């Protein structure tokens, strides 16, 4: 067991012929992910990776031909909203969007549209999903994580790798790692993923990696306090960030005094979460 992706995942790559799309498709295939098709409009009929993966013009046609049940998006930011609509309308139940820099008004439209549908979007601006030993969807380096019992969920990209790496160094493995992305409007929240981890029999403990901005960590703390039975360890990035300065992620703005690292740490501690001072401290707190 695991959440969201496993060996039954039949993956479609939107933007497969772009530089990043092609590189990471190769990485995913090497990892063992079943990449069944790619989409690049205007390149339908081509094949990539030595003729192993067919390219289609249209996501709908790709799904009809290959039975893809998940999609990962590598298209440029200006086309990303359209790519998500396309995947959702093609009936794909899981869409993972790696692209960063998607305009926020696009994402508000996307999210309000998807809320009417039975579609899960992870991202955008996220590293994707990794169920170690089974399936990698996105760009998380496969070699930094091993199969195990720890559910990892994170708003950050590379900071997640840091944590997975630290876990591996300590001999700890992950059930599934979910990068939900750092944008202010995204598809999947901490809360959504915690619910899935709580219901997943393989996951025994959970690591949550948050950052300043928004109130997603506070909502997660609320869920942990009231409904979560599995232990959670957390780290919040941005404790040294000067208030009011924008730290790259649109989410990382301190909004009217709310959303500071201190507040998030406090809410999590009150919910019984062990909060690490730095990412490399996490394995020790899990062992504890």
């Amino acid at each position, binding site marked *: 067991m695991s959440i969201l992706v496993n060996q039954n995942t039949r993956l479609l790559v939107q933007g497969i012929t772009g530089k990043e799309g092609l590189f990471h498709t190769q990485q995913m295939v090497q990892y063992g992910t079943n990449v069944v098709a790619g989409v690049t409009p205007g390149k339908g009929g081509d094949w990539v990776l030595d003729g192993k993966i067919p390219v289609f013009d249209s996501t709908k046609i790709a799904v009809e031909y290959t039975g893809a049940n998940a999609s990962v998006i590598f298209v440029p930011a200006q086309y990303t909203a359209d790519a998500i609509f396309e995947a959702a309308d093609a009936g794909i139940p899981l869409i993972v969007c790696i692209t960063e820099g998607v305009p926020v008004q696009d994402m508000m439209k996307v999210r309000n549209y998807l809320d009417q549908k039975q579609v899960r979007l992870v991202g955008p601006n996220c590293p994707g999903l990794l169920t170690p030993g089974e399936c990698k969807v996105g*760009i998380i*380096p496969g070699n930094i994580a091993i199969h195990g019992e720890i559910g990892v969920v994170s708003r950050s*990209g590379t*900071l997640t790798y840091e944590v997975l790496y630290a876990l591996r160094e300590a001999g700890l493995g992950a059930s599934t790692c979910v990068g939900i992305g750092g944008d202010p409007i995204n598809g999947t929240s901490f809360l959504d993923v915690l619910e899935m981890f709580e219901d997943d029999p393989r996951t025994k403990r959970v690591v949550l990696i948050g950052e300043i901005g928004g109130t997603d960590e506070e909502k997660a703390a609320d869920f942990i306090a009231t409904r979560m039975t599995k232990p959670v360890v957390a780290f919040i*990035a941005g404790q040294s960030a000067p208030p009011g300065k924008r730290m790259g992620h649109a989410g990382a703005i301190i909004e009217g005094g709310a959303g500071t690292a201190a507040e998030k740490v406090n809410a999590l501690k009150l919910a019984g979460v062990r909060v690490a001072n730095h990412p490399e401290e996490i394995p020790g707190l899990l062992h504890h």
Partner: protein
Amino acid sequence: MKLHEYQSKAIFANYGIPIPRGRVTENAAEARAIAEELGGRVVVKSQVLVGGRGKAGGIRLAKTAEEAETVAAQLLGMTIKGLAVRRVLVDEAANIETEIYLGITNDRAARKPVIMASAAGGVDIEEIARQSPEKIFKVHVDPLLGLREYQARDIAACIDIPREYWKSFIAITRGLWWAYCETDATLAEINPLVITANHQLIALDGKMVIDDNALFRRPAIASLRDVDEDTEAEVEARKHGLAYIQLEGQIGCMVNGAGLAMATMDMIKLQGGEPANFLDIGGGAGADKVAAAFRIILSDPKVRAVLINIFGGITRCDEVARGILMAMTDVKSTIPMVVRLAGTNAEEGRNLLRNAQMITAETLFEAAQKAVALVEGS
């Protein structure tokens, strides 16, 4: 990207929102000419991208054109919260009866735009938001449907705007909505929207913030950027698509990913050091971008050590290494460097850097420790 008051109001006017007659200028003599043109009393307002201008003395009334010139000259010599005043807006003065607040922003929790309005507009709106939130009426707009006529009307009714102003208030609200949509704003705000003694609704002050991610499709808005307000390093960083914020410490940081960059800064602090900057090279940065980042960090004279922390995912460590080498042949620097590479192509990257003079580290903890030690030892 923040817009100046005069820029925001010019956009409002394009959407049919009444604004005071007036013009912006960079010199006091022209301020006088503008005041003469307008006739009567004028308000001279410093144009700096920072809040609280009024309380800082950056907004002044002038009764005559001569006074306008004097006041403009004073303001153009001022610095407000560290920003030099380079332009003043000269607007005709209004006889204010009522001050209304009207703003649109993105509510991330609701995932929808939210329109906020209050009959208690003016400089103390944030104070009112804190102390009497019930005085601020909020309505969410469905991003697929857009603003409905009835919503604009509901706002008018709920903040008790006198009926004779409804039609014009509704038109202003719709105008502000379209300005927000068609500029990809994250904030579009009129404060105050005033009812004047001669029964006009006028947007006396305005503020817009634009979504940087959407500037690619808003070239007219992108061209409004006021580069005078940025440091040279910030301008350079933006040119290369780098997120860079200069801070007060001595340890320059180059990291990929905002979260990891913040965690790296946190770690430096935890070890007793101070980061000199936040710098995120983003996902999939190539050698050129890395080289640019490197030059930007070293352009800060406070920097006494550099910590490079790259965890490869979409970014490949070999590309980063190539960028560092490229920059090093370029910028002959003696500043010591600690490099930590992990993830995608980390080994290739480490191999490339083998012959360069660099301190390497395995963990972030170790990297930060070494960087702090370098500063303390220097």
